[in-house]
């Protein structure tokens, strides 16, 4: 399976199943497009006609082009057949019931009242609650008990606003550090916060213990303050930005993301990215809002087209700043082409409901944070373990090949079949697809690959 596209002056050929990426001239690009439909002689004749204005496109040259194409096919880098489907379910089967990541909902309450919050202001459509140390401790024990031979265990302190239960967070980190020595595990913690309660002590502790911090900022003040307001309706921008700047400055080279949400109010979200850069942040993530289609924040079909164009603008800005020696990171343009995930990871789906689960303040288990509050998606609890085996099996069977729409999609080895929660919210089934999400995802991958091509382009460097 191939994907061919032209972007920013580059003719890109992606061989889906080998993962190979070729940047080609326009003649080869056209030849590859015809390769499986016509014989070599016919293709060469068509090229001679189409490029009759070019002196360098000769029969001799085209014979060499054919040799190049055949060489790539022989090397398993072009038209590689899709042989992964029968492997798609095997990784999760082999993993058994191993769990390696938990999203701990330490606070189902929030000190902001963001209108677009998928978690209904942190309450997840339920009552306000905070997790006790005892529940959190049991959750960590549950994770260790169910982690099998996995060494790296991920725990995300999430909410609501986790800093509203900060003492418990610190005690849980301390407990996990004791346990990891006993059980030969390595805990990686993440804190996701709106910033309101950040102080020097939070900064110092987090910069020591959290592998990653996710700091919620939507970009420009007027955009951020439109949705991210307190219960009196006041925007939070002025209060959080100085705290975030101090947090990041003192973080050194440890990982962080400024994580924004864009909505119908700002499909031109690149301006918000630029604003974050102006504030001194360089590790950035901006996500499309998750909400019902009739919500005023929802992206319209017109917005989707704007966003796709914005992704190109953003890609060009990244290249420009890279050349100027002031690079920045956009989460969705991070592609590790040489040492990225193996094909098992790429075809197995995100792990929600199997190796990854969310834990409520009272210890119930859900497939991921986005299913919390949907009663029919309760998997069990941290005391009895997973009791809804049918639901776990349903999530286990989600992979890059489990949806008809994905089978012929070139991007399936980049998205793993997509987000089950987005699919559920858009179609009513975790086996459905969220089509606008797919469209944006594909655009992001096209841009990310184009950036790799540009940064590898010696001519551009000169």
């Amino acid at each position, binding site marked *: 399976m191939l994907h061919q596209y032209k972007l920013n002056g580059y003719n890109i050929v992606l061989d889906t199943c080998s*993962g190979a990426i070729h940047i080609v001239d326009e003649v080869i690009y056209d030849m590859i497009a015809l390769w499986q439909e016509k014989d070599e002689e016919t293709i060469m004749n068509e090229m001679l006609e189409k490029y009759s204005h070019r002196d*360098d496109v000769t029969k001799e040259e085209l014979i060499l082009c054919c040799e190049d194409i055949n060489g*790539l096919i022989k090397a*398993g880098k072009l038209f590689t057949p899709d042989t992964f489907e029968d492997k798609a379910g095997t990784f999760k089967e082999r993993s058994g019931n191993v769990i390696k990541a938990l999203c701990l909902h330490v606070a189902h309450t929030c000190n902001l009242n963001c209108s677009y919050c998928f978690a209904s202001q942190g309450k997840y459509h339920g009552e306000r609650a905070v997790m006790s140390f005892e529940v959190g401790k049991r959750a960590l024990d549950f994770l260790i008990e169910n982690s099998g031979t996995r060494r790296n265990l991920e725990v995300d302190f999430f909410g609501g606003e986790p800093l509203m239960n900060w003492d418990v967070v610190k005690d849980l980190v301390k407990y996990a550090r004791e346990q990891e020595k006993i059980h030969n595990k390595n805990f990686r913690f993440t804190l996701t916060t709106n910033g309101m309660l950040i102080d020097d002590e939070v900064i110092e502790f987090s910069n020591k213990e959290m592998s990653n911090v996710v700091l919620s900022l939507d970009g420009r003040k007027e955009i951020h303050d439109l949705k991210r307001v307190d219960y009196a309706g006041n925007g939070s921008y002025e209060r959080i930005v100085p705290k975030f700047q101090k947090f990041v400055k003192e973080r050194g080279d440890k990982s962080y993301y400024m994580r924004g949400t864009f909505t119908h109010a700002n499909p031109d979200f690149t301006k918000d990215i630029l604003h974050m850069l102006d504030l001194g942040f360089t590790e950035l993530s901006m996500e499309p809002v998750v909400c019902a289609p009739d919500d005023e924040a929802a992206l319209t079909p017109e917005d989707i087209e704007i966003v796709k164009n914005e992704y190109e603008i953003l890609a060009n800005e990244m290249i420009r700043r890279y050349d100027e020696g002031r690079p920045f990171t956009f989460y969705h343009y991070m592609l590790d082409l040489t040492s990225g995930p193996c094909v098992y990871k790429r075809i197995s789906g995100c792990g929600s409901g199997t190796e990854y689960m969310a834990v409520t303040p009272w210890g119930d288990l859900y497939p991921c944070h986005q299913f919390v509050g949907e009663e029919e998606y309760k998997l069990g609890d941290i005391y009895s373990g997973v009791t809804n085996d049918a639901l776990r099996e349903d999530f286990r069977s989600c992979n890059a090949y489990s949806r008809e729409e994905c089978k012929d999609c070139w991007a399936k080895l980049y*998205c793993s079949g997509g*987000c089950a929660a987005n699919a559920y919210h858009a179609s009513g089934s975790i086996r459905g697809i969220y089509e606008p999400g797919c469209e944006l995802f594909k655009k992001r991958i096209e841009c990310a690959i184009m950036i790799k091509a540009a940064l590898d382009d010696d001519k551009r460097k000169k």
Partner: protein
Amino acid sequence: MERIKTLETRDLCESAVNGGCGECQTSCQSACKTSCGVANQVCENTEE
């Protein structure tokens, strides 16, 4: 003329041989929280 430039990439077919250790980061944990993407993950298999 340079007709084809192939970027250096991990061969996915070969990765099927020793892959699947399961130590890499869970896809949406720790960063985006609203979409699934695996391409930005880093392989943690030390035995390959």
